[in-house]
């Protein structure tokens, strides 16, 4: 046993060196720490960036965007540990996974568990190459936290499905090629009347209208389905089994939202510049300093918690603590965004133009956007309900 563990560790170390070398040879240095090209970035910007296209092609060819998927699905068939190593090595060079998307984070893992072979072969390779962008058509005006009260109708027309209704807050719907949606196939039951459907956004009868966010971006939309024809084969799992699939998908979503992101740049040097230092070289506002320290310590403890829980779980799948982790992470990162804006003072209040630097404007917009972290993917309150009920065994 011990010998096995040790030999695995040696293999991991070898793999790390291999990954490091390959990434060094293929990751375009010009893309280091370019946040705009992350998965929520604009499609046009990504398409117009030759470095990004090269990088995407390299990762697609290697299957490292989804390292754990089988190669017939566009992955590299690697172990979880190896996948993690790739992520760590990428982070170390300020890199990012160009394939990371709702497809890789949410739909892919779900299809792997619930899709039939035809569906997997039809969609997974395109997710793995980031050629098909997906959006998540779950929320509706009357169905947010209470997702199961959704009403978008899906009628069996014999040779196809007919979908009618409205979705809202659909991130990236205006840039997406496909949508994984929850639809109602039975109105007599709440949870038991929902199905999971894959819808081609190019289908007739779909309209996506962008909504402007407080951060100024328009990355979410309201989406209208007017008698949209969907092929029979696009239903994942069984009819009326959608809720089970959705719950699993939401676990994947929360898991990815609470994932350890790139190691965040420390705020202290910035604070030294913006706020100044006292005679001992400390940030020149004891109050701000104390709050920054507290946030940084919580962040460090959070990273240790993620590692500990991952070790304890060992199986690699999403665990019970995911709701707790998601709330901790969103709280820490929201507070961090605020501290950043606060330390920038009046320079953190700019919207556009001079004299605000790119970094300052970006910090301000990120602060506004960060307010969504405790809303989407299951709100803070609903995560706490889940923790109370499922982890702590409280009744209700």
């Amino acid at each position, binding site marked *: 046993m011990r010998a096995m563990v040790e030999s695995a560790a040696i293999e991991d170390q070898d793999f790390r060196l291999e990954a490091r070398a390959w990434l060094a040879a293929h990751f375009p240095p010009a893309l280091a720490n370019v946040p705009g090209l992350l998965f929520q970035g604009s499609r046009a910007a990504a398409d117009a960036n030759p470095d990004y296209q090269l990088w995407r092609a390299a990762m697609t060819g290697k299957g490292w965007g989804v390292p754990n998927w089988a190669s017939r699905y566009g992955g590299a068939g690697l172990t979880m540990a190896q996948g993690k190593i790739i992520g760590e090595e990428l982070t170390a060079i300020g890199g990012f996974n160009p394939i990371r998307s709702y497809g890789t984070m949410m739909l892919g893992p779900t299809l792997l568990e619930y899709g039939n072979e035809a569906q997997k072969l039809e969609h997974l390779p395109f997710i793995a190459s980031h050629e098909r962008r997906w959006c998540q058509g779950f929320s509706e005006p009357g169905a947010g936290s209470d997702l199961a009260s959704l009403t978008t109708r899906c009628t069996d027309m014999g040779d196809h499905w007919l979908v009618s209704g409205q979705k809202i807050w659909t991130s990236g719907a205006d840039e997406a090629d496909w949508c994984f949606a929850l639809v109602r196939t039975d109105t007599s039951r709440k949870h038991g009347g929902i199905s999971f459907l894959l819808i081609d956004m190019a289908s007739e009868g779909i309209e996506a209208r962008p909504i402007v966010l407080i951060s100024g*971006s328009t990355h979410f939309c309201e989406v209208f389905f007017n008698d949209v024809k969907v092929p029979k084969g696009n239903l994942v799992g069984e009819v009326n089994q959608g809720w089970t699939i959705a719950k699993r998908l939401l676990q994947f979503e929360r898991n990815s939202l609470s994932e350890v992101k790139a190691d965040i740049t420390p705020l202290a040097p910035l604070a030294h510049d913006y706020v100044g230092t006292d005679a001992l070289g400390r940030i020149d506002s004891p109050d701000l300093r104390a709050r920054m320290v507290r946030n940084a310590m919580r962040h460090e403890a959070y990273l240790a918690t993620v590692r500990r829980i991952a070790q304890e779980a060992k199986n690699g799948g999403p665990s019970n603590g995911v709701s707790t982790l998601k709330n901790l992470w969103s709280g820490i990162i929201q507070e961090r965004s605020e501290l950043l804006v*606060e330390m*920038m003072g009046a320079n953190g209040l700019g919207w556009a133009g001079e004299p605000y630097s790119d970094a300052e404007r970006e910090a301000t917009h990120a602060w506004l956007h960060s307010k969504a972290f405790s809303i989407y993917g299951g709100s803070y309150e609903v995560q706490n309900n889940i923790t109370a009920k499922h982890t702590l065994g409280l009744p209700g």
Partner: protein
Amino acid sequence: MAVLNEEQQMLKDMAADWARERMPVTALRALYDHGGGGRAEALGYDPDAWAEMAQMGWTGIVAPLEHGGSDFGCMGLGLVLEQLGRTLAASPLLSSALIAVSALRLGGNAAQQARWLPGLADGSVIGTLAVEEGPHHAPERTALVATPAGDGWTLNGIKRPVQDGMIAHLAIVVARVEGGGGDRDGLRLFLVPTDAPGLTREPLDQIDARRPATFTLTNVAVGADALLGGADLLDQLLDRAAIGMAAEMLGIADQAFDTTLDYLKTRVQFGAIIGSFQALQHRAADLFGELQLARSAVEAALVAIDNDDPALPRLASLAKAIVGETVHVISQQMVQLHGGIGMTHEHDAGLYLKRACVAAQCYGSTAWHRERWARLNRY
């Protein structure tokens, strides 16, 4: 709520009605560009609404009778500022009617008062304080210099952000006549008309659409009669500025809370009104408690101005810090409790969040005032 006399109560009700009708949040929204930031041609205020304010006498509430004011007191002006805060009404009332008028009242000689107060009191002159030079409130680090020239002075330096700077006619400019950064004895205040040769201004595109200014002063010449006072006067002004801003923030917090409470009473999820979930009931109850602290602190500070209370500096910092924390939490919870809709530009929550953040930074942040309170109380 402080016990108001009949006139104060009337003023408050009138201001509340007027703000609701004349300057609802939609009026502020009209100053916004797509998604946030101010429209390029907008000045961050509505001149017609300002004229109406002047007509109602608000611009002269703190000005003495002999110069066209009503000498009604800071408590009265605070009530108005609070009501304007509720609807995020954009106006230079704080800069002009409280800060600039106070500057002349407290520091002006007879000639200076006669020259400026009537215009400020009737609203035909908009005044402001030009104090900040960097991202953080740090008046003692003022670098803008005033050098003696003949029997007057020449001013050189930069001010940013200057609240209402693009629309002000008169700036009270904080300058240094001697000493280096950190030395308060070398500070002086000067009355500078914004059309003075050598003074240029640029708008700042800020998240709350209010468009403060950057002032660049290049060899701006002022006469001997421009000198108003030194660091002690500045302290008095900054106390009033902080308290006035705290009053506005109290209104922001109050309305953010009320709007959120309404939503908790109407939005249905899981077959129930979300306000029936205990988690949200407790959150609302906690926020309500915070609001009580904030109101008491702000009102105590306003009263202290009118009573010339020696505790004024401490109370000013208490008000700004306490209400700063309150408005921070409430504006954030306003977004959170509205869920997805709270994240949209179309909804008011984001406008409250943005204004709250700007207000909290003005005239000393929450951290700055906590630190000052600590010093004043020997912590």
